[in-house]
């Protein structure tokens, strides 16, 4: 039988011939049935500081069990993890860890949460969903580290078992997404709006790539969109680009560009703007948007000082967006 299947998980809606895989490489048509070949087979599983995701307003200072399978539904030319995200499963190495095994590991290592990260959990959707559901039942929190390139129905279904989502907003135009990521921006924006509407804790990251998305208007447009559609409270992380994968010809992002982006985003009304992938004195800390008091001091992935009192500024009492315990 040569029955084609159509995968409706992500906006690519791949039509897959028998024996072939979709664009993500891990969802395969086997005898007319869509199969995921990575369910229960993470290629990487590690305990990380939660600040590495980066998530700065979600259980700061805790460790998080982090896992990934190979595969990704986007193909960013600058991908830092391309060796696993763009790998074929048949060329990769993985361990057998079914969902209940992941939960057991989180418990064993006293990790209060599980991150679906490194590649994109949309590519291993069923594994992430089933593990999240079990994790919830065991009292664990679930974190998606994703590009948010998913169709609304499955995305909302996944959000039902998700506590926090760190979503990449890589640029503000379809042109940028098409050229550098093989996607489009609108589904990502809709995923962000849906996540906030469903009460999931959201933090946004934007990788600033010299000459491609580092202009003042790029930064203002991105910041305005976040403020207008998600709210001033949503933390935004500007991340430093390093030459990687198929984008070796561009230089790393200068620190001044990142600091300037942070200033612009704050001028546009965002309360919590950070600079990452590089050491930055002020860009790593959380300040009260009301009285400007230093609330959380960080150095790299380490929380040096947390002055919050029950999620509020100890001086002016302003409630700070986040999940603090």
């Amino acid at each position, binding site marked *: 039988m040569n029955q084609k299947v*159509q995968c409706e998980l992500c906006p690519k809606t791949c039509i897959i011939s028998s024996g072939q895989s979709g664009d993500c490489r891990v969802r395969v048509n086997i005898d007319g049935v869509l*199969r995921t070949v990575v369910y229960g087979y993470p290629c990487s599983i590690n305990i990380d500081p939660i600040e590495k995701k980066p998530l700065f307003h979600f259980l700061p200072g805790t460790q998080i069990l982090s896992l990934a399978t190979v595969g990704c539904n986007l193909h960013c030319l600058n991908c830092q993890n391309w060796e696993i995200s763009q790998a074929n499963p048949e060329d990769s190495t*993985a361990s057998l860890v079914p969902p209940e095994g992941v939960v057991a590991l989180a418990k064993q290592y006293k990790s209060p949460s599980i991150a679906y990260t490194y590649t994109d959990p949309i590519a291993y959707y069923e594994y992430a969903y089933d593990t999240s559901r079990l994790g919830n039942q065991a009292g664990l929190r679930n974190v998606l580290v994703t590009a948010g390139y998913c169709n609304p129905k499955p995305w909302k279904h996944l959000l039902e078992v998700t506590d926090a989502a760190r979503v990449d907003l890589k640029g503000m135009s379809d042109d940028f997404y098409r050229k550098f990521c093989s996607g489009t921006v609108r589904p990502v924006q809709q995923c962000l709006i849906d996540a906030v509407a469903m009460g999931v804790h959201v933090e946004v990251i934007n990788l600033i790539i010299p000459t491609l998305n580092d202009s003042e208007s790029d930064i203002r447009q991105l910041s305005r969109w976040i403020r207008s559609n998600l709210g001033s409270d949503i933390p935004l992380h500007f991340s430093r680009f390093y030459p990687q994968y198929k984008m070796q010809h561009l230089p790393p992002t200068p620190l001044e560009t990142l600091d300037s982006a942070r200033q612009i985003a704050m001028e546009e009304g965002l309360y919590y703007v950070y600079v990452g992938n590089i050491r930055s004195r002020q860009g790593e800390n959380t300040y009260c948007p009301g009285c400007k008091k230093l609330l959380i001091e960080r150095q790299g992935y380490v929380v040096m000082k947390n002055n919050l009192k029950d999620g509020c500024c100890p001086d002016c009492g302003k409630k700070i967006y986040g999940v603090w315990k």
Partner: protein
Amino acid sequence: MTRRSFLQKILAASSTILVAGWALAKTVMPRRFLRAKPLSKYPGRLKTIADITSQTKWSG
């Protein structure tokens, strides 16, 4: 040819066309899936879990 046999032939021909069309459409039109079913056997190599407390090189 009587009217009855003519109508019978038309009916038979239409049914044949409909069934063939449906079979052809079923082959050409993809079956839609939202959720993929797990495959029990990994297509790549398997390894035992390494020390999960060591720092990974992967970003995120």
